[in-house]
């Protein structure tokens, strides 16, 4: 059975994202972790494009991979954590952690295997809701209230950053 280009892309991105995610977890060096995480974000953006969600793909790259991860990198550099000096947790704890994470996945997968939606093919053409025009339209009409409300969130984050960041007065 020949795979279409899209399918090949899907499997490539999937394996890339999973591999990168694993590398995030298992890299000794925090900087490597950050870089691998950026890799994950890029592959996920690829998935978005496959899913015809171009706006989110771009935002993901700009905001996440660009801004946020840079911030992370910045902090790590600032703290001079660019070494592999992190002590690992005890073996038992790591084993328990891996086991529980793994069984979490297994259970979810097992539960969702017989899902009704499996027949749906995902790559057919659609009306292009993921395009910026459509999303912008909805965001500033129907979703204007949550949008405005999230400004409160940013305000508080800003205040918080100021409070936490500035030197103690006394």
């Amino acid at each position, binding site marked *: 059975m020949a795979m279409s280009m899209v399918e090949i892309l*899907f499997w490539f991105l999937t394996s890339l994202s999973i591999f990168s995610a694993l590398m995030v977890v298992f890299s000794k060096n925090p900087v490597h972790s950050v870089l691998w995480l950026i890799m994950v974000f890029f592959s996920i953006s690829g998935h978005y494009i496959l899913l015809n969600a171009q706006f*989110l793909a771009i935002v993901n790259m700009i905001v996440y991979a660009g801004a946020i991860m840079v911030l992370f990198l910045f902090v790590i550099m600032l703290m001079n954590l660019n070494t592999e000096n992190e002590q690992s*947790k005890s073996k038992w704890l790591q084993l328990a952690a891996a086991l529980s994470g793994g069984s979490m996945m297994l259970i979810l*997968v097992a539960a969702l295997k017989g899902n009704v939606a499996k027949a749906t093919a995902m790559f057919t053409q659609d009306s292009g809701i993921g395009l910026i025009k459509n999303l912008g339209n909805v965001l500033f009409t129907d979703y204007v209230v949550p949008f405005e409300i999230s400004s409160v969130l940013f305000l508080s984050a800003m205040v918080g950053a100021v409070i936490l*960041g500035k030197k103690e007065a006394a």
Partner: protein
Amino acid sequence: MPINYYIFLSVALFSIGIIGVLTRRNAIIIFMCIELMLNAVNLLLVAFSKMHHLKAFATDVATKVGTEAQLFVFFIMVVAAAEVTVGLAIIVMMYRNIHSVDINFLNRLKH
């Protein structure tokens, strides 16, 4: 691609995130793993958005179904950005005091 593939993918990413949170001791890495989990969610939401959209699209070509999930993802990103600001501020503050971001040193408060 069936929706299940996306579900499994994001579940896998999510679980890897959890494993990361559980196994690492560096607060920043843990935070990154949490971001990984959020991205798994984002991916899943977009996939679901597409799925619901296609279901509706079969009967109505002008349907807007699915928009809300993509906007939700947008809001998640927004919130994540704010969270990162605060989170990193806290981590930096912590680092200033104890010169470490190892969570195993967070043990003054117990019992």
